[in-house]
């Protein structure tokens, strides 16, 4: 409590001190399922224990949360919102976010430079951790560990390959990622689409659950899959491997935002500060294999290898795209995919 008071007196927004002292609840929007459980255990609980502020969870996926934020623009109910990369930019554009003053956060110093998202000089989001779309394969059918994305076109795996469709959040960025690997460097997508047409895929998945199902039932044996999904299968004893090929992997992150018009700005800032702590990052890495967005997190080797950058990798192996550019190309890529790939 002393530290909190100290933090609040350090706060620039002096007028909000009172509201922080009175605020006994903080409304945080995050995902359902095991992600929600992990956020609850790793961030919300320690935060509540440290501050006495009760966290009210507002469960929903990123799109739904953004819709809520827009509805509540006049009278914000949600104080802190978790949003995926991509939606985060949309939220920023629609003006429902409040800048985060990193100076007030004790743990902000440890943030990796990539993990801070700015619009102009204002920070509108900080990363809560990374996840990637790595090369996932069936270790019984694919006996040699693949080292390159070229493996997708290996004739031995014809008909048993899976890639995400544009209906999946990874679909459009994955096309752009492949264009980085196989394109001519100009942003022209023709070579990549030509390559995709050659691909004999058994499943173009809409949901990561469908991909997990297909790997589990041996319907597909190789393809890009989220590190979280892949390691869930491996941990369940499936003969599945997950690697980061030499070309790297596309990755994105879950991000935290303070909502414009929040009535508890100090508690919101403190919540984000708690999430940036080494303990929280460790906890999330262990539970969701989320790659920490802060430096100085020591993880056991067992957890280390499940991170989005793979064993011995680092955040430099991740291709993190500017979602604004991805979103700008979404309609065209989706349309082209429909015409050339999805039939």
């Amino acid at each position, binding site marked *: 409590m002393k530290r909190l008071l100290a933090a609040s007196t350090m706060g620039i927004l002096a007028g909000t001190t009172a509201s922080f002292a009175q605020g006994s609840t903080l409304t945080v929007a995050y995902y359902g399922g095991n992600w929600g459980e992990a956020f609850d255990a790793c961030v919300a609980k320690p935060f509540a224990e440290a501050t006495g502020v009760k966290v009210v969870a507002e469960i929903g996926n990123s799109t739904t949360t953004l819709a809520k934020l827009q509805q509540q623009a006049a009278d914000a109910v949600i104080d802190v919102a978790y949003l995926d990369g991509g939606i985060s930019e949309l939220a920023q554009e629609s003006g429902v976010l409040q800048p985060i003053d990193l100076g007030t956060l004790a743990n902000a110093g440890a943030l990796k430079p990539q993990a801070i998202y700015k619009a102009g000089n204002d920070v509108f989001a900080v990363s809560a951790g990374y996840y990637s779309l790595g090369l996932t394969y069936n270790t019984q059918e694919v006996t040699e560990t693949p080292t390159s994305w070229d493996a997708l076109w290996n004739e031995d795996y014809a*008909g*048993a390959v899976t890639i995400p*469709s*544009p*209906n999946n959040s990874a679909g459009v960025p994955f096309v752009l990622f492949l264009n980085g690997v196989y394109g001519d460097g100009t942003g022209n997508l023709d070579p990549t689409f030509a390559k995709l047409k050659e691909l004999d*895929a*058994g*499943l*173009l*998945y*809409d949901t990561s*659950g*469908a991909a997990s*199902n*297909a790997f589990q*039932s*041996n*319907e597909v044996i190789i393809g890009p899959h989220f590190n979280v999904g892949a390691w869930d299968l491996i941990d369940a004893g499936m003969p599945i491997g997950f690697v980061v090929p030499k070309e790297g992997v596309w990755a994105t992150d879950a991000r935290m935002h303070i909502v414009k018009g929040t009535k508890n700005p100090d508690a919101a800032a403190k919540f984000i500060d708690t999430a940036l702590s080494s303990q929280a990052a460790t906890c999330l890495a262990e539970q969701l294999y989320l790659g920490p967005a802060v430096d100085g997190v020591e993880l056991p080797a067992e957890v280390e290898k499940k991170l989005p950058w793979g064993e011995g990798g680092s955040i430099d192996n991740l291709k993190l795209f500017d979602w604004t550019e991805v979103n700008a190309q*979404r*309609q065209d890529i*989706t349309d082209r995919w*429909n*015409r050339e*790939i*999805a*039939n």
Partner: protein
Amino acid sequence: MLGSRSTLLWLLSLPVIVFTAFFLMPLAVVLISSFTTGEGDFTLMQYGKVLLDSYHWQVIITTFRIAILSTLICVLLGYPLAWYLVRIVKWRTWRRACVILLILPLFTSNIVRSFGWMVLLGRSGLVNDALRGAGLIDRPIKFLGTETGILIGMVYILLPFAVLTIGNALAKVDPALEQASRDLGADPARTFFSVTLPLTMHGVLAGGIIVFSMAISAYVTPALLSGGKVTVLAMLAFQQYSTVFDFNFGGALSITLLVFTMALIGLATWLSRLGTAAEKAA
């Protein structure tokens, strides 16, 4: 008296309000959005985008091909099944068990069902394993991600609707009519085509229309079984709403689907009426 009448009015207004709020309003919203630009101005551009593009026609044709084939297969399989349930099964417990077995698929979740399809129809699923075990094929046959796969899934889900409507019509045919036909010298086949089938035609038609409407607008089954490699109109519309966020174009796609569907059902009804009239004239 006045009190009871106003109560009645109030009671009647409830379903009307529910119908308006949950059916007409959303439909109106979709309709209006399909005629507007992203900025909210009136336009026919959305429909131009749909109809002047051969790709969309290709999707429309695929959609209708799958729906019409599903309907035909459901009716052709459904009629004998309904016959079995209504005419052959005498033991009521067994009939009930058959009906439950028939509608059971409707109660399973999509996830369970799609997993089941992979186990059954997949690359290394039961069907392919059996065919390979029997030495009939070398490479697995592709079911998933093909129209055949979607058809199998559709028929599986929609068959109960055909069986129940046809069975209902069949149960209402007076057995004396079939006996009269036999008595007048018709063999069983002639009796079926001259008496039973015409008398159950309304059930066949109703079942067909139900199956067709559900097949043409189906999203989940084609989405799960197409493996992302076959596209039907509902998937295209859903994609506009869920990932591209173009509600205007999505609306135009939805209304196009609705109009084509109603036109085809209207045509089928008209043709069947024409058929009945011709038969009467003969």
